[in-house]
């Protein structure tokens, strides 16, 4: 943490959309020590036209707390200068934004690793669940957790 100033950690869970450029600008403003910012946005896929929407449920309180814990771990581990993680809930149509992670660091490797670390942990440890809604009007099931997401997380331990 440059100059003893705590790195900003921004965590939000919200129904409304986010503006990746605005969030990035807010995080980088005033951080002259930063040489790299990585911005990741996760989108809703249409799964080959099959899907009309994903509905995201969360555990209010714990979702924010868990993302906060993950972000603070990332700041510590990669010496980030700032991190923002914003996750949407509710119904999201294909093409819509689901999640945003912005990682700010002195150099690019820490920024890439920080963003990747936060996403890998968020997917497996933050209490969110996706339900599919199909284009033909029927309601699909809950999305199953993927082993590949567990493996992605394990590479950091």
């Amino acid at each position: 943490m440059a100059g003893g100033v705590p790195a900003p950690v921004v965590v939000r869970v919200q129904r409304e959309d986010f503006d990746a450029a605005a969030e990035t600008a807010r995080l980088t403003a005033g951080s002259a020590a930063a040489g790299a910012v990585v911005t990741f946005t996760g989108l809703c896929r249409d799964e080959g036209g099959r899907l009309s929407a994903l509905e995201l449920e969360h555990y209010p309180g714990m979702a924010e707390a868990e993302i906060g814990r993950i972000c603070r771990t990332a700041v510590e581990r990669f010496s980030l200068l700032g991190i923002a993680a914003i996750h949407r809930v509710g119904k999201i149509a294909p093409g819509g934004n689901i999640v945003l992670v912005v990682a700010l660091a002195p150099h690019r490797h820490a920024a890439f690793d920080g963003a990747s670390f936060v996403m890998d942990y968020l997917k497996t440890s933050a209490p969110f669940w996706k339900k599919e809604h199909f284009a033909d009007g029927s309601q699909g099931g809950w999305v199953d957790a993927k082993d590949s997401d567990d493996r992605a997380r394990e590479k950091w331990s």
Partner: protein
Amino acid sequence: MTKLVYFAWVRERIGKGEEEIDLPAAVKTGADLLRHLKTRGEEYAHALEHEKVICIAVDQEHVEHDETIAGAREIALFPPMTGG
């Protein structure tokens, strides 16, 4: 009384999002809690059928099934997470 909260298909199968229950003294761990709840009815037995996949959080922090739940104000049960 302990507040229990349920999410996603655990919530749908049990048929409610939350409830307050008195836990017997013998229920000391997360695994004990799952076994106890499964005796409360078919809907619980169905929701918690595959015990190992159920995630448990005590006061909004993840715990392992063999960890104590003593003193918990709020215990959450939910399926593996699929956010991001």
